């Protein structure tokens, strides 16, 4: 099962920063057309795993493949196959929605004519056709987020990476973005996202990996995880899997650090 067909394959992935082990040999797969979430507390290793898959960090050990290509052996090829929407607001506020998309198309080496056609199509898809010539700075939070997602889609990537896609959005905008992500998947793109919102993972994702201290604590469908832990929500599964039963109470030894 070393599938070239898998969108993402991660096997024994380890990353050390000096003496700190950010990832401790994690393994998971994302199937084509799947929406997969990495869930975990801050510092769990989610961002590190994502940055290795995006060729922005080199792993200390282990293998990471995107659409069948090793990220350390074929980085420039992988960069053409992935789309990434970071947590930060990365649309250029001084460019219009259309200009931001055309810009990304250029960085992905789309020829001007193909770029124009693709951008028009994406503006339609993102519901931004009526706002194409507005500056990104003047878009609402939800619209700007959709633009930033669209910027990750100009080159029809095999896998779209979303880092905390709905952070800071109100519930209406969040729901609307979920529908948008489902539409992206319907177009054949796999989606790997990180999120703090367990409700988001539950509602949106086919499978979820709970990651903590650089290890995968659990990996399954939201329904199966809830059943296995006899829990009614992913929150309870999350707390059980990460050992954070009483998140408000700090262990005594952490209170006396000088």
């Amino acid at each position: 099962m070393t599938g070239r067909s898998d969108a993402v394959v991660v096997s024994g992935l380890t990353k050390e920063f000096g003496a700190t082990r950010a990832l401790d040999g994690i393994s998971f797969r994302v199937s084509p057309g799947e929406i997969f979430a990495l869930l975990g507390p801050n510092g769990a290793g989610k961002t590190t795993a994502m940055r290795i898959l995006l060729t922005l960090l080199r792993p200390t050990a282990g293998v990471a493949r995107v659409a069948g290509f090793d990220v350390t052996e074929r980085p420039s090829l992988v960069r053409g196959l992935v789309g990434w929407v970071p947590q930060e607001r990365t649309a250029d506020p001084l460019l219009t929605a259309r200009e931001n998309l055309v810009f990304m198309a250029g960085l992905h080496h789309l020829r001007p004519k193909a770029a124009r056609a693709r951008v028009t199509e994406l503006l339609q898809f993102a519901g931004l056709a009526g706002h194409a010539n507005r500056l990104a700075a003047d878009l609402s939070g939800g619209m700007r987020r959709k633009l930033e997602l669209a910027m990750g889609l100009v080159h029809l990537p095999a896998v779209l990476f979303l880092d905390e896609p709905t952070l800071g959005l109100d519930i209406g905008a969040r729901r609307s973005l979920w529908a948008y992500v489902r539409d992206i998947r319907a177009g054949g793109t796999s989606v790997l996202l990180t999120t703090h919102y367990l409700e988001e993972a539950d509602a949106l994702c086919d499978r979820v990996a709970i990651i903590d201290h650089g290890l995968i604590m659990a990996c399954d469908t939201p329904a199966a995880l809830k059943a296995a832990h006899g829990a009614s929500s992913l929150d309870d599964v999350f707390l059980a899997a990460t050992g954070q039963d009483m998140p408000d109470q700090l262990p005594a030894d952490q209170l006396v650090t000088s």
Partner: protein
Amino acid sequence: MTVAEAGLAEQLWLEHRALFGRWLARLRRERLAVLALVAQPLVWLLLFGHLFARMAADAAIPGSDYLRYVTAGAVVMTIFNACLEGGVELLFDRESGFLIRMLATPAHRLAIVTSRFAYLAALTGAQSVVILAAAYALGVRFASGLGGAAACLAIGCLFGAGITALSVGLAFSLRSHAQFFPIVTFAGLPLTFASSALVPLNLMPAWLATLARLNPMTYAIDSLQGLIMHGWQPGSLAGTAAVLAGFDACCLGLAALALRRGMR
């Protein structure tokens, strides 16, 4: 995509086109900045041209016409200032997360920097044309003609490239733009005064003249002054080109070190 992939040359062209277009679009949206870019060099020329003209009349200014003398300085100072600050946009991109998003695309990393060079060369070239045209309107005549004006732009470009490299290197060495501007401001004015921009070396105190002789800006200015006031001097121009090329190579080396650390 079913269409054939773009080859390396076409890839470089497409990504530079996109990056250059972004710099230009950002400039267009900053109306006040555009105004400043045109007005500032003219202020240099008019302010210094008239401020020092009376003093200069009593001193041994070569050619005895200070406005004619300071035209070269105004061009080079303008290029110096624009290029010295020119790297800060990359620092803004680092701070906002825009840079790392670009690094995750198939675009060549160096294109992010070279597009900035191309943009600043175009920008300062346009500014230089404005200054030279204004000087002409005020009665300054070029001993080397229109070809000399073109040579002025080429030397300006050669000088600006090194300064841009330093600025880009600085942008990748600092954590935030709050550190960038004090450093640039601190360095800018003394370097301008320790050059032949405003005062010829033979009118300077000996120690300042020595410093000015080590300043690459002096070489650029002297060549421009030669072209404007005395005509073509191929030997001295070749010498300047060699000095500036060496300066550029050193600056690019420093910038490459900073980039290697900052882009990872």
